[in-house]
């Protein structure tokens, strides 16, 4: 089983049935597996704050949501995370590619990487960092935690986790 298939297996096991995505090369395998899975409705979004709005509606409609995006999106979505997801106390697992870490070929990505964990900490968002493939064994517990506490939760997945670029 590939790591992408393992991740989607855990999503389905936790009844996540609505996934919105903004494209990412590293998360491409997960996005493809989400699209292919019959138990998941996949709604691509044009921007991450729009995706978080879709997720809020899906959750209120009875479907557990998830958003898949890059860490640059933290800069885009702070207002939405604070005034929608947190203010109304909604659960939102965020599977995030942690661009700008070790093995990153694009210098500009490092500029957002250095702010990523600081911003998440400032927002009091529980944050988990997958660096080695075995770290993904915790995904099931992280998802259960997210829907227990009704918070946005960040899962950062770096280039080493994905096996480089």
């Amino acid at each position, binding site marked *: 089983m590939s790591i992408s298939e393992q991740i989607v297996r855990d999503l389905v096991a936790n009844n996540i*049935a*609505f996934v919105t995505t903004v494209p990412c090369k590293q998360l491409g395998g997960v996005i493809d597996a989400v699209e292919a899975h019959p138990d998941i*409705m996949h*709604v*691509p*979004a*044009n*921007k991450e*704050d*729009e*995706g*978080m*709005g*879709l*997720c*809020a*509606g*899906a*959750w*209120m*409609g*009875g*479907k557990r*949501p998830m958003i898949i995006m890059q860490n640059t999106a933290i800069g885009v979505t702070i*207002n*939405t995370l*604070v*005034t*929608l997801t947190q*203010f*109304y*106390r*909604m659960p939102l697992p965020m599977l995030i590619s942690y661009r700008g870490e070790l093995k990153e070929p694009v210098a500009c990505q490092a500029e957002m990487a250095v702010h990523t964990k600081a911003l998440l900490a400032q927002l009091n968002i529980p944050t988990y960092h997958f660096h080695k493939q075995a770290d993904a064994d915790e995904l099931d517990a992280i998802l259960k935690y997210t829907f227990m506490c009704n918070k946005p939760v960040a899962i950062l997945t770096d280039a080493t986790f994905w096996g480089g670029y």
Partner: protein
Amino acid sequence: MNRSDILRDIAPVIRDHLVVCNIGLPSQELHMIDDQPTNFYMLGTMGLASSIGLGLALSQPKQVIAIDGDGSVLTNLGTLPTIANNVADNYILLIIDNGSYGSTGDQPTYAGKKTALAAVARACGCDTVVEVAAKDTAQALADALAVRRMTVIVAKCDSGNIKVPVITKDPVVIRDRFMTAVRS
């Protein structure tokens, strides 16, 4: 007619349906005119009423009306292609287009100038788009609910606001009450 006149007109039509209402004065006015447990009031996050409404419509079978404004749709213009390409026939997007940012003091929007939101929605691929005068909004909504087809309604009206109190309900109370109504 301005936005609050439209909200008074449509209140009897939307009362028994799930409503996601835009931030600021639209939510405050609807809350004052006809507060219902089936209303989800946005207290922040400009632009996302249409997205929340679409996610809700795609996730359960009841009919959903998102009440948005021209300024908020312009803020989140990417919503229109997403709506067009993820058809939910239980979804109606009502854009009350007064050509201004009402909640912030009626500064003009581009929708009040050269930009036609109905044409934008059509160009984005929305199949059923109707533009109506303010006085015809309630009938257009009733028609769209009856045919049960995903519809974007652009209701053109005058700018201008009424005096209205802010919503002091706790957001979690609004959300929990709404989710109970969704499930009932």
